[in-house]
């Protein structure tokens, strides 16, 4: 298992946002996390990424206990994410959004940067090459110097994915990647996500409300309701699960 959560619980005062959730991801899995609004999906993401610390429960990533790791530490260990409401750095151009995240083999300290030492040039060249090739891979090679706010919505989402990939992640979390896309864009996104998983050796966990998208792409699905895990299985099993139909899907089977 590359990722394992046991009894994950988060309480905010009297409100239990996530309650005793178990989750396991094997290397290369493509798994969905669904549930009605307020079910605790985004809280789960926040716990996994270290943005928030769980009240109880444990998280293991690549065999290491990372329950108390902070957000930037988790990111450096290989957990990257995109955001439900796009959070690009609007005052930097597209290339710099990715370059700010890239890690070169060697650190570029303040002195090297300020005095333009050879090390700075090496790091800069490596980072620029990496960012450019990631952006080209995601079809954004022509807009490197644009401001992210000027890009169409779908491109902004893909820029978020490129930025997350700049971390060389093992686990990629996508928070509603298909939100606001039309059916053609969604079909294209499905292709992209599948291809990226193969090319970058990723394990992917995604949240989305579009059942066609989730069922079409995920091999397994976890279902949350009121912070609890109410079901887990293949898309076919989930579609016919009584509890899931009652809590979320409505009669569909």
């Amino acid at each position, binding site marked *: 298992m590359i990722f394992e959560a046991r009894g994950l619980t988060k309480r905010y005062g009297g409100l239990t946002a996530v309650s005793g959730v178990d989750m396991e991801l094997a290397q290369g899995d493509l798994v969905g996390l669904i549930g009605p609004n307020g079910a605790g999906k985004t809280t789960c993401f926040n716990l996994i*990424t270290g*943005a928030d610390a769980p009240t109880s429960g444990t998280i293991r990533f690549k065999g290491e206990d990372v329950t108390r790791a*902070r*957000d*930037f530490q988790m*990111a*450096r260990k290989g957990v*990257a*994410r995109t*955001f439900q409401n796009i*959070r*690009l*750095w*609007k*005052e*930097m151009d597209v290339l*710099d*959004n990715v*370059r*700010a*995240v*890239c*890690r*070169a083999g060697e650190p*570029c*300290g*303040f002195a*090297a*940067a*300020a*005095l*333009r030492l050879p090390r*700075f040039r090496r*790091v*800069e060249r490596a*980072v620029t090459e990496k960012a450019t090739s990631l952006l080209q891979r995601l079809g954004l090679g022509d807009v490197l110097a644009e401001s992210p706010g000027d890009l169409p919505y779908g491109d902004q989402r893909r820029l978020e994915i490129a*930025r*997350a990939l*700049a*971390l060389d992640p093992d686990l990629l979390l996508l928070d509603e990647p298909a939100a606001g896309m039309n059916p053609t864009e969604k079909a294209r996104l499905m292709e992209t996500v599948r291809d990226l998983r193969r090319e970058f050796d990723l394990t992917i966990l995604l949240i989305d409300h579009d059942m066609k998208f989730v069922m079409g792409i995920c091999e397994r699905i976890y279902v949350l309701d009121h912070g609890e895990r109410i079901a887990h299985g293949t898309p076919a099993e989930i579609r016919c699960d009584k509890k899931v139909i009652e809590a979320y899907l409505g009669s569909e089977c």
Partner: protein
Amino acid sequence: MSGELLFWLNLLVTVGIYTLLAVSLNLINGHAGMFHLGHHGFWALGAYAATWLTLNAASLPGPLLYVLSLLLAMAVAAIGGLTIGIPCLRLRGDYLAIATLGFGEIVRIAVQNSPHDFLGGSLGTKVPRVLMEVTRTTQVPFRFLTLAIVAVACAAAILVFRNFLRSLPGRRLLAVAQDETAAGLLGIDPTRSKVLAFVMGSAVAGLAGGLYAHYMGGINPLNFNFMEMVKMFLVIVLGGMGSLSGCVIGAFLVVATEQLLNRAPEAIASWWQVLFPLILALMIVFRPQGIFGRKEITDMIRAWRRSPA
């Protein structure tokens, strides 16, 4: 004639010192997006550190002592920035402003209340004229030499900041300033970025303090009062938060206005204390991004060249 020359030399040296203060304040407030109001404290730390060394190492040759005292000024201010930065940078927005403002005032009041034989206490102290070994006088040659040194310091500080902002750690700082949550989740340690900006900014403010002490030949705690902080803030608001070019232009406008007003009759001169806050208020209402916004002169020249004539 010589009086006129001295006036303009003095004006330009002062512009240079305020440029240093403004670019360093701007790194923290403009680029790093923190609300820091204690810059006069770092300035004072630098001035007093340089003064202390100059008073206590009088046996060294003048020019060497001058350089060493400037280095000490930067180091002491940077250590101040680090000590204040680490606990304070967990605060955000107004809370950070209040904490840093408190720091700035503490530095001044601590000196004011220290015994007279330690840095002069509330009466201030003379700073030995170590550059006199070179210039023989504190008149025109001294001011020319100081102006040259200040100009080099400004150019170096601007170059270092510009290079930094266009590097990996610089981009991380800009990312933290724009969206700290996203930056953290993408592997950037926000505290580290902010402390780095704070230390760089305070070091350059310390350098400005050292240059100022040597230039004035004497300092007292009231040189570093909160009105000075307001002036620095006005410079960066006027020039443009996040623009290095804006700092230079802003410093020139503010210092020139103040010094030209100072030549006017007393009744008019004292109005600068009304004028500056008024300009500050008007800028924030009508052009909050300042003259340059976040742009640099070089960006504008490039854009102008590219546009069809």
